[in-house]
């Protein structure tokens, strides 16, 4: 069978297009469109006193200037709180254009539309906005101290207090043989897709319809938002995600102000209007993630088994909460990872600051949760003088404990019940892959070369593929071409390949015949979006079900023609044939033709389906009752709950004790996402995730000063790792299929990034013997740490000093 492609490392079909400059990204669309540009707030917190456009009006090429005063109806209302939650007691969102107050540098205040982007920026330069500055809140600690309020009517700066517990944690902690408490921090980074956001809108006045291209992760929902905000009927709006140059979460947020304002202007002006975000806008006008202060208390016994875990987190949500408290919930619920925690209490206080909004960035709260849990494991091991791997091993959920119920509620509102996994198996493979038990020899070797070597590990469990649903449509044309569509969008993940593999395998057709379309509301109107490692799980399964529907119909039609039972037929290489009877067959494309009884013939293929082509049964209608013309099927997959992938990472670092430069010399990944559609694509996802994990641990941060000015809002100063900074990655796989979905798959998109910060913090701490309680860490900070009289030496370092091994 040549068509069973599921599980094969098929080369990505989209790459030829994407890497030879033939992709069609947002800014490739609409060469003649007017250009929009924005005057954005230069202040982190201020009242708008006045907006003076007089000096701008005589710029040649200016078409229109919009301020809040120009917004009407739903556009004049705050942007939606996309995901309401009862514990989000004080949600706040901005307006499409600032309404009298700005709450972060970069908030849009004025939109300019001009003949091109150069002119639009010239106009922006000449618009004078007068501000009255207000006190600025930057960082979780300042928000918590609440000396000043971001939103006047929320004096404590707290948007939400998310609280979950699985029992009464305090008496268990009090009764625990041992306990320890500590506080740690993790900083902001951001998605930083190579392509920023962008919107192109075209209004057809004759048809009263709107077509919008947007670089989004959720075209169907952008469509609904535009229709609602601009008072249009849904059937008059189509939204298409063209090729999207990366998303990583920032493009799941919607509607961005620009996604509403650009269509609004296109309608008002009767002209095509386009806005392509530039890099500085992306830094200050999109979204960040990850800053948290974590206070952790853990009870445990002399063997290192956890008895109780009590976590209190302050989470910086930035100026507004359009995406609700998804990131706090994900941190709270994914923190427990692969471990059996007898009693767990978590409180996440989500606080406002005068900084860019915080919404999911690949990992979406999981890296922070993993950092909390895994560093807790390291602390317990350090206190007890036990191997860090051993402490983890003793706390793992065992393979016979599935389904494992954590008694928590996940981001989809469903219980956190792990469907399957083999966590001890991951740990064994990881130790082997990285050479964990060789660490002390490696440390001595490095010492001889004048380097400090450390090893660290981190394990995670990732809830993937949350509902509510996705759909798929598969249609076989008379040409033999198989059209596949799903509503969720692609940002470079390789969906065209993976979904085609699924259809080729399910339907029995050559992959070359399969064409996949994603994120186009003209083709598929119902979808949720691409986030939470859900595309393969959700659309993959929906498409598989749709393909099975097509197969069933094809066999039924072919059985009539071949005078056989459908159960005796098979489809291979696009040919429907009677099993074991070579030559008794009919091409699938012919079945497609026959599936649509015709009156009119326009080519040879169609002739076969016309009413005089062959005698029919005069007692039956040409289309059977309950049937439909065409060889196509639409189906949906709606899971009962998320499926839980897992993995384990280990890093070996070498540190130069003269310059404190940190070199990741080995990085090992063991990965379990259930059945794998395409191992090459999964490994690519792991590589990309690890790159972002290394970036988040060692290079990236959002350097806000006390005035709320982002000091590194460019690729010169925001240090995304280059290929030269990303270590070689050793990958081993484990496959524990999910029992929850037909294909047995789990998501793989975000996993690679999750344990990076935790594993690297552990490795650096192991190398230098000083407690690492704030990440990311750079050489200059490491230098400060090792020479600070206040920094804490680890117990392990003290024990090593006693044995004469360099700490």
């Amino acid at each position, binding site marked *: 069978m040549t068509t069973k492609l599921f599980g094969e490392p098929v080369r990505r079909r989209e790459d030829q297009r994407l890497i030879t400059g033939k992709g069609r990204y947002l800014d490739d669309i609409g060469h003649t469109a007017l250009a929009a540009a924005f005057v954005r707030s230069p202040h982190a917190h201020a009242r708008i006193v006045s907006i003076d456009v007089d000096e701008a009006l005589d710029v040649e090429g200016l078409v229109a200037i919009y301020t809040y005063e120009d917004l009407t109806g739903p556009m004049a209302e705050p942007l939606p709180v996309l995901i309401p939650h009862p514990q989000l007691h004080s949600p706040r969102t901005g307006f499409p254009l600032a309404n009298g107050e700005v709450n972060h540098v970069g908030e849009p205040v004025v939109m300019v539309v001009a003949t091109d982007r*150069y002119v639009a*920026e010239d106009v922006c330069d000449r618009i004078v906005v007068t501000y009255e500055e207000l006190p600025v809140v930057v960082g979780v600690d300042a928000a918590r101290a609440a000396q000043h309020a971001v939103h006047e009517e929320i004096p404590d700066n707290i948007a939400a207090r998310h609280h979950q517990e699985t029992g009464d944690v305090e008496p268990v902690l009090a009764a625990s043989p041992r306990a320890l408490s500590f506080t740690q921090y993790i900083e902001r980074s951001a998605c930083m897709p190579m392509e920023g956001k962008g919107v192109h809108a075209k209004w057809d006045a004759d048809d009263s319809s709107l077509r919008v291209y947007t670089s989004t992760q959720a075209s169907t929902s952008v469509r609904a938002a535009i229709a609602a905000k601009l008072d249009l009927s849904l059937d008059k709006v189509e939204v298409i995600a063209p090729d999207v140059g990366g998303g990583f979460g920032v493009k799941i947020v919607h509607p961005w102000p620009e996604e509403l304002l650009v269509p609004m202007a296109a309608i008002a002006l009767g002209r095509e209007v386009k806005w392509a975000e*530039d*890099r500085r806008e992306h830094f200050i006008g999109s979204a960040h993630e990850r800053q948290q202060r974590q206070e952790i208390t853990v009870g445990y016994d002399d063997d290192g088994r956890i008895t109780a875990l009590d976590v209190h987190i302050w989470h910086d949500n930035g100026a507004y909460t359009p995406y609700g408290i998804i990131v706090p919930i994900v941190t709270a619920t994914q923190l427990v990872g692969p471990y059996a925690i007898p009693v767990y209490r978590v409180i996440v206080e989500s606080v406002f600051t005068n900084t860019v909004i915080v919404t999911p960035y690949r990992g979406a709260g999981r890296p922070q949760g993993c950092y909390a849990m895994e560093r807790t494991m390291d602390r317990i091991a350090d206190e007890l003088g036990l191997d860090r791997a051993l402490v983890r091993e003793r706390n793992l959920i065992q393979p016979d404990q599935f389904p494992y119920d954590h008694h928590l509620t996940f981001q989809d509102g469903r219980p956190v019940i792990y469907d399957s996994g083999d966590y001890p198996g991951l740990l064994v493979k990881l130790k082997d892959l990285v050479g964990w038990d060789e660490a002390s020899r490696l440390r001595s070797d490095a010492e001889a070369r004048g380097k400090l070597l450390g090893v660290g590990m981190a394990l995670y469990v990732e809830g993937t593929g949350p509902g509510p649903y996705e759909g798929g449509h598969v249609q076989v044309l008379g040409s033999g071409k198989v059209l596949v569509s799903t509503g969720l969008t692609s940002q470079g993940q390789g969906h065209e390949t993976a979904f085609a593999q699924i259809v080729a395998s399910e339907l029995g057709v050559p992959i070359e015949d399969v064409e996949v379309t994603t994120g186009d509301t003209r083709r598929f109107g119902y979808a949720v979006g691409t986030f939470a490692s859900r595309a393969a799980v959700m659309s993959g399964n929906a498409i598989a079900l749709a393909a099975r529907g097509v197969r069933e119909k094809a066999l039924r039609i072919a059985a009539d023609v071949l005078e056989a039972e459908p159960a005796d037929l098979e489809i291979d290489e696009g040919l429907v044939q009677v099993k074991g009877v070579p030559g008794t067959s009919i091409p699938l494309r012919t079945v497609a033709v026959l599936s649509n009884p015709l009156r009119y013939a326009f080519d040879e293929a169609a002739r076969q389906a016309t009413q005089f082509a062959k005698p029919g049964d005069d007692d039956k209608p040409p289309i059977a009752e309950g049937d439909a013309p065409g060889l196509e099927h639409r189906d949906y997959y709606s899971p009962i709950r998320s499926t839980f992938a897992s993995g384990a990472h280990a890093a070996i670092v070498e540190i130069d004790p003269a*310059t404190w430069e940190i070199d990741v010399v080995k990085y090992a990944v063991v990965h379990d996402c259930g059945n794998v559609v395409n191992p090459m694509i999964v490994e690519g996802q792991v590589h990309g995730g690890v790159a972002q994990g290394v970036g988040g641990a060692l290079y990236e941060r959002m350097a806000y000063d006390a005035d709320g000015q982002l000091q590194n809002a460019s690729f010169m100063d925001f*240090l995304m790792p*280059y290929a030269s900074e990303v270590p070689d990655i050793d990958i081993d796989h484990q496959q524990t299929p999910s029992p929850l979905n037909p294909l047995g798959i789990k998501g793989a998109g975000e996993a690679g990034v999750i344990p990076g910060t935790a594993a690297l913090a552990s490795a650096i701490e192991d190398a230098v013997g000083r407690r690492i309680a704030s990440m990311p860490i750079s*050489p*200059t900070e490491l230098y*400060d740490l090792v020479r600070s009289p206040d920094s804490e030496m680890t117990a392990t370092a003290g024990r090593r000093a006693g044995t004469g091994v360099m700490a």
Partner: protein
Amino acid sequence: MKPAPFRYADPSSLGEALAVLSDEGAKVLAGGQSLLPLLSMRLAAPATLVDINRIPGLDAVEVTADGVTVGALVRHDALLRHEGASAVQPLLARATANVAHPAIRNRGTTVGSIAHADPSGEMTSVFALTDGSVTVATTAGSEVVGWRDFFVGPLETSIPAGAVVTAATFPALPPRSGTAFAEVARRKGDYAVCGAGVVVTLSEDRRVERVLASYVSVGLTPEVHDLTEAVAGSPVEKADWAAAGALARTLVDPDTDIHASADYRRLLVGVLTERTLADAAAEAAGRAA
């Protein structure tokens, strides 16, 4: 991130260029690797850009026994690969190899980098360390300006409005001398957190005679520090390079920015000085042999 409006001129002779440069707010465009980002961020908005890329004769590297003269249109990469130039002054290739990434080295010019006077540039540092000079052309004629008179402040030189730097000259490495260049950057190819270039000169009897160092991303303008006193007279094999590093730490006045504290830069000045001096001394010893 689109530049403000500007007039663009692409003269085909130096005289023509100088004529246009006499306009108020005119700025020279060579490789554009620093200027164009500044324009795009509207941090600079010159009225006229004078593109000198079409002027013949500015792309030559001239090597004599006395030194290397680099024309205003010589790209970093061309200098990096110029064997004759590195034979006479090895610091040129050693420093250009640390300038950013290949794409930038292919377009960016060494003279442009010097004229930009960025103290975090490798070539400004090496220009000072080698006791270089530039040729400055104005409508009144050409004059040679030594590096000490050239650098005035960060991104600021003494050349008058309307002038163009047509070449930079790097004197040859003295006899019985060796050089080294090293830097610590957050990412490969980034501006250095700290860089160090050194020249060690030995006496006929292989004792340390002279030690000079210049740093990258340390201080407001390029400086050359004489570290000789820390190791003067030591036989080359026994010289205490750590002492020279320690001396260097006392001589520099680095700043703090978001990538490194002043203290950390000072640490690196010491470490990189010690390491580069050891390498340069070994090279000098080889040449003195």
